Structure formats: C-alpha cells, structure tokens
C-alpha cells in the first residue's frame, strides 16, 4: 500500500459521488412501469385444470402441504358395445394457499401432465391472509399469464421429449413414404403439428414474453387431446 497525499481519498469519494449525479437513475418506476421479469420467474402458480388427473403427486410432494385437492370418481360408459365402463377422477377442488407456499416449485416440477405452471405475475397481495388461498377459478385465471418458456442455451442437450418427438415423426415419415406420397405428406404434417404442440413447453417457443392473447392461443395448442 503506497503512501498517498492525505486528503486524496476524501477527494476521490467526492468525485465518485458527483460522477453519479449526471447518470440516469437506476430506479424502476414500479407501479407506473412494469418490471421486466424473466419467463422462468417464480411468481405465482397457475393451474390448467383440464390437464389435472388428480394424481395427488403435487399435494404429496409439497414441503408445506399447502395444496388442497378434492375429487370424486365418475364412471365413463364404454365407447364400444359390451366393453367395460371406466372410472375417471373428476377434480372438485384445487386450491393453493400462498400464505404457506415457499415457492420451491416442486409441484410444478413433479406434475406429470403439465397441469401446473409458473407465471411471473406477482401482484396478488391481500389485506387479509384468507385472500391468499387461491381456489381453482383464480388459479385457472393465472394460466392466461403463463409466458412461453425461453429457448435453451445453444450448448444444451435437446430435451428428451423433443428427441422422442423427432424420432416419432421420422418414423411416421419413413412409414408413410413407402406406400404413397399423399399419405406421407399427411404424416409429416401430423409430426410437425406434434412438435408445434410440444414447442412452447420444451424451449422452442419465442423468447419474448407473449402478450395475453397469444399466450391463450399458445395454450390452446398445448392442450393435450384427451377426449
């Protein structure tokens, strides 16, 4: 440490601070300007109830036990004559108590049918703690705000689902090209549609946060065709 003239340190302090006087303030004008949040931000958990099969995995894995699920069984008559009728779980209640939630994301992670999603929305503070218990309708509304996930880094491996989908469409193409050209084209179209459906979830969607309308459209393509 070299000896310096006494007072230089004090002058430098003044210089550093005055330098910042001319710079643009970094403050974000929050209620007037929306914060720029990354798509992966864990803001609120959204539910797409049509995807839920009441498997209870989220509820069981939740470290805070803040997910409440009620359901009943319904029997679906067989579609074919003389077949067995099947039972199906029908979701009656799905609620997340955000006053307990610790935003770990385990429920979103474990959901095998993509019924739970993270949304960066965060403005749901309440004057009463009861208001933080979001029932199914409220959770469903959050689903409209789910942004498309960002594309993965160039060095990343393609996710397993994408690899599977590509293999599947290749197979369909291969099978279709043999008998007739027309059927092959149909197969390719089906394969492309499949990849498109998977796209937003698997990191192939657009990077920017979609506005609500496009998000809703994207969601409708994402809905699996269970019926």
């Amino acid at each position, binding site marked *: 440490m070299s000896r310096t003239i006494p007072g230089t340190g004090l002058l430098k302090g003044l210089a*550093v601070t005055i330098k910042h006087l001319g710079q643009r303030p970094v403050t974000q004008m929050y209620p007037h300007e929306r914060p720029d949040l990354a798509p992966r931000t864990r803001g609120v958990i959204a539910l797409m109830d049509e995807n839920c099969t009441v498997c209870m995995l989220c509820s069981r894995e939740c*470290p805070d036990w803040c997910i409440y699920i009620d359901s009943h069984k319904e029997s679906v008559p067989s579609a074919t004559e003389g077949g067995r009728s099947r039972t199906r779980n029908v979701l009656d209640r799905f609620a997340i108590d955000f006053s307990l939630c610790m935003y770990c994301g385990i429920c979103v992670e474990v959901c095998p049918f993509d019924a739970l999603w993270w949304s960066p929305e965060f403005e749901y503070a309440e004057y009463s703690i009861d208001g933080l218990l979001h029932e199914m309708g409220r959770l469903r509304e959050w689903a409209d705000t789910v942004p498309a996930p*960002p594309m993965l880094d160039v*060095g990343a491996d393609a996710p397993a689902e994408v690899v599977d989908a590509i293999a599947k469409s290749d197979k369909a193409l291969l099978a279709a090209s043999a008998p007739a050209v027309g059927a092959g084209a149909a197969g390719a179209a089906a394969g492309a549609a499949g990849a498109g459906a998977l796209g937003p979830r698997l990191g192939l969607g657009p990077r920017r946060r979609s506005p609500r309308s496009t998000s809703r459209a994207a969601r409708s393509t994402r809905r699996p065709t269970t019926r």
Partner: protein
Amino acid sequence: MSDLDVREQLLQGTAPGEGLAIELVGDGDLVTADMSLSIGPAHPATHGVFRVVFEMDGERILRAKPVIGYMHRGFEKLAEYRDYRQIMALVNRHDWLSGFSNELGVALAVEQMLEMEVPERAQWIRMLMAEWNRILNHLMFIGSFALELGAITPMFYAFREREDIQHLMESATGGRLHFTYNQVGGVKIDLPRGFLAESARVSKLTRSRMPDYDDLVLGNEIFRGRTVDIGPLPTDVALSLGVTGPALHATGLAEDSRVTEPYLKYGDIDVEVPVGRNGDAYDRFAVLLGRIRVSLDIIDQIHDHMTSGPVNQKLPKMVKAPEGATYVRTENPLGQLGYWLESDGGRTPWRLKMRTPSFSNVQAIPYLVQGQLLPDAISILGSVFFVVGDIDR
C-alpha cells in the same frame, strides 16, 4: 481475585466469558457501576435478530456476550423429515444470501453417497452460479459494512450491482434469493439462450464498477481511520475459534477449499485467494473486495471452459441415499460450509448436521471487541461477516 484483576484479565482476553452480573469498577470516590448495553436483538448494527450484550465502562467495552438463537428454526430437524428434493428448497434459506452455495453442499453430499457422476456441463453451470451468488453475498456485506460506519452510498451502489446479477440469475433459476436450482445429479434445467452472453456482459459491467468501491470506501481516510488496526485477529486465534472465509483470509492464511480441496471443476481453473496482513477490520473488508474480483475472474474462465451436453440425469422416482455417512465441505461466501449427512437408506436423511460459517465466525466477537470503544465494536461487528439465519439455523 479483585474486580480489577478480573477486568485486567478480560481486557487481555484470557478470562472465560462469565455471567452478566453488574460489577463495580474503580476505586475510592470513583466507584461506578458498569453499564450493560444490549445491542440487539433489534438494533440496526446487527442486521437481523442477533444480540450482543456489552458490559461497558463509559464507551469502552469490558466484555461482550453474543446471545444467539432468536431465529432458531430447527433446520437440522426439519431436514430429517424432508426428502432430498425438498431439502434443496430448505437449505437455501438458512444463509439466505448464499442460497445456491447451500444447495450445492447438499447436492454434493448426496451425490457423493450415491457415487454419482455429475455431467460436466452441470458442474460448470453450478460453478458459474456459485460464483455469481458469492458476488451477490459480498456486495451485500460491502454495502452493510460501510453503512455501519455511517457511509450510506456504497449500499445503494452495491444494490444496483446486485439487481443486475439477481436479474441474471433469475432468468436461469427463476428465483432471486432462493434459487432452488440444484438437484441431485445436476441442475434442474439448462440455461436459457443468451444467458452466457448476458453473464459476460454483467461480469464486465460489475468489474467496471469495482473501482468506485475502492475510491469511495477503501481509499477513504475516514474509513481507514475507523478500520485500520481495529479488531486484529491473529491466525492461531482465528483457527482455534473456527473462523473461516474472508475473516480467516484477512489474517493472512489462504485456506479456501476451492483451492486446498477442490470440488466441482475448481481444480481445472486458477483460483486466487486474496489475503490480508493482520486480520483487522480493514483487511477483512479489503479481502471481501478482492474476492469479488477473483470471482469475476473465475466467471470469465468458466465462460471459456463451458462445455455442451446434458445438465442432469434421469433419477429414480425417489432419490434414496444409501446407508452410511459423509461430510462435504464447500467454500461458501462467508466461509466453510460443511454438511454431515447420515442416511439409513431411507428417503430422508437420518441426520443432517450443518457446520455453518456464520456460527463459527461470531465466536470471535467476544475476543475481538474486548477493550474496544463502542463505535469500534460496531465496526468489528460489521466486519465479521455473518447472516443471522446462518448462525441460528
């Protein structure tokens, strides 16, 4: 033994910390009662619910007794009822300023028990995040230490930098403090596209702003007057008290498990350990600033080394560590973090013992503040960097 003898012993730091009964000091007409001054649990200088009780004669401190436990949340017990995925969301909350590094320790421990090979890319990503997390942590302490000495501005500048870095980390992990990005066998999901370019940009930006802290704080004569030779900590005392991290490096000992016992890929890159001379408050602060620069260097190296490939691996539905025990130590921002993980083969640990750096570092406070003035004691409290949640757990 007379009171004065006791006092003499206390000033030399040889007496054990006795009770807090008020004693009379002085002689003849000048007998005065010592004042006991409770700093905390809600005092601005202890940033959290840490409490120190000072026995004072005027403004001079005769002895100090840290009182901890106001924030005890039973982490070790909670961990025994959580599976390994849930523990990740738990441990990033004991030292809330180094969430990622805490998760990393648990992940490494479980992987060690499973003898699991972690993909190379995942290791680089973990290192990248750990170093960014380290910078986040150090920036916080740079700001708060300066604030405790009455300089308000470094805090605002530090938070400006922190905001950029948090935004960067949020884009990959989804969290700003509690990242929950690690999982056994790698990280949850790969980086988003453009992350590395953004990381390089933020690294450059942060580096360009570091001279501000040198000029504003480190070179300031008032700051030097308040910190040089205040609370010097000899290396042997530091070691016997279990002090680690920046506070230990400031004493001149470069004991950093990234270098002495490399984990992840730290062995493949150059890690410099900035050290101080006599372990006073000034050295501790200078080491902290030096560590930010080193972390930025490491980040730049990681950008060059980054490989492509998978970042995690297929896990069984429920990760179960095999029966046995292991100890993993990592260099957390504040010092050595150790996890002793003992498993009976079940889905939850049988025991998870934490050796947290803050807990060990605050053990030095009674030694350091004895015989100091109250303002110097505040300077010492601020320079022995600790997070209250990390002390009480």
